[in-house]
């Protein structure tokens, strides 16, 4: 945690931009380089920056550990759930073709949902790793 006002204001200015960029990478993952993993890491870096500048307590007040663990689990479930839905629709596991009326929009929908699951899990796990290491010396 720092008392330097320049650092605080710069961080406050940058954090929303980093988050916005993360969302951009997330939702353009199907067309351009990027996707859930990269977006998740970028999003997590915004929260890690917040933790570095304003202290780990402040960051874990925003995202408590119990919430992060559930978020990580929910991301995996979303990914697998898409596969199960495509199985229930009569296809193979993760066959996106059947998710919408025509295969092309089915593939779009499938990839967006799966990448969202990846993004949720990667963000949560990255922040968990940061918290675990940062909290190590505290009782």
């Amino acid at each position, binding site marked *: 945690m720092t008392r330097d006002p320049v650092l605080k204001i710069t961080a406050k200015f940058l954090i929303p931009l980093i988050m916005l960029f993360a969302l951009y990478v997330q939702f353009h993952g199907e067309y351009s380089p990027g996707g859930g993993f990269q977006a998740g890491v970028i999003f997590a870096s915004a929260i890690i920056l917040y933790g570095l500048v304003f202290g780990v307590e402040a960051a874990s007040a925003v995202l408590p550990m119990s919430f992060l*663990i*559930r978020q*990580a*689990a*929910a991301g*995996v*479930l979303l990914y*697998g*759930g898409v*596969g*199960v839905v495509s*199985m*229930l629709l*009569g*296809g*193979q*596991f*993760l*066959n*996106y*073709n059947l998710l919408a009326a025509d295969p092309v929009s089915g593939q779009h929908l499938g990839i967006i949902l799966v990448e969202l699951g990846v993004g949720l899990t990667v963000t949560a796990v990255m922040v968990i790793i940061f918290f675990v290491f940062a909290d190590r010396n505290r009782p």
Partner: protein
Amino acid sequence: MIMDNLIALLVIIPLLAAPLCLLLPARWSWLLTTAVSWLVFGLTILMLYQVDSQGILSYHLGGWEPPWGIEYRVDALNALVALIVAGIGAVVIPYARLSVRAEVAADNSAGFYAAYLLALTGLLGITLTGDVFNLFVFLEISSLSSYILISQHRERRALVAAYQYLVMGTIGATFLLIGIGLLYGMTGTLNMADLAERLQEVEQTRTVYTGFAFIVVGASIKLALFPLHWWMPNAYTYAPSVVSAFLAATATKVAVYVLLRFLFTVFGVEFSFRSEFFQSALIFLSVAAVLVGSALAIVQINVKRLLAYSSVAQIGYMILGLALLNLLGLTAATLHLFNHALMKGALFLALGCIALRMGATEISQLRGMGKRMPITMAAFVIGGLSLIGVPGTAGFISKWYLALAAFERGWWPLILVIVVGSLLAVVYIWRVVEVAYFQESEDQSRCEAPLSMLIPTAVLALANIYFGLDTRLPLYLADSAAQLLLGSAP
């Protein structure tokens, strides 16, 4: 829908149950894990029937055709290994509730069951997949979750043991990945069947030889072939009892399966065993594993560690069967996968009962246990007899076939090795039995383990006798798997 997606469901159900464990209240996690393990076991039996009636099953993940997409491909060998994994998983998990409560910190139990489900996912995934990169991914899933499982014991030494296993396991997995990468570079494919075809055109290149070497060494680390076994005794000794039983009965078996699959299906017998040096090296190492593993087991004072060294020796028998390279030898190797899972499962579960009551598994703690925990010790003795290979137990059948295979080759010294290995097993099992039955303890009160732990232990112990007398099922499966492996040679 269930029958169409049967193979994929075997992997997906435990995979999705793992995050559910973390989302649901902690008291439900054991119940969910039990339900999932039994469901998976049921589905494995269904799959076994399907393989038997239809031959090779193939499933295209995501609807992508192989060799481009990931294919799950199940034949007699996969089905047998999947049966071992799912069966041990189903027997072990009812036992886990009380044992885990005693040995794992309470606030970790949901995470423990999630990691257990992921380990089950990984092991089943390795077994079922027909894609070498997918195999690596599942290997990592199962390895990472088993490091976590081992580290969960309350004693801090478990952390060091898990870390040692992590270092060795990572080296093994990396070697495997380097090998797979080299093969991919030469052939441009990752599908096992496709790889087997394309490798024939380029098999005389140095890249393929290097890939072969990396894969064999990587798999040997994972299956703890002597002298790459040193991570195993610590990992099995300090892990929670349930984890020792589950991993000893399944993880090394799956690693042996990986080696079999690469040597016989991907590379083919002719390529793998073209140089006689490789065959004699495997035979030498497996003989050394049998003798050194058994000898080291004799001098241990912790019974869990004793069993871990005995596992090193038993893996030696499996690799010996593989290296004999005839139908009987491969039958013996695959049969021993099945039988060894039964005996080591029973022995480690019996030890878990003792650990619950005595808090430790040093040999001196077992004094008078024959009277104090008669059923547990009876299960231990049956498991021990099977380990020795006494006629009428499952262990006898696999050793018999192994001896027959060596006889068919006319390699008499190997039969001697099998006999000496069995005699050494008599010594280390007798040490435990002697303390438990012939030494008196001050405390004579009965302290039998609770029923939920006794029943799984007894089931596995009785299975050792049942499959020693009625060998139809494992023998049929092992025989068709061995025929398939040798028949798949180009």
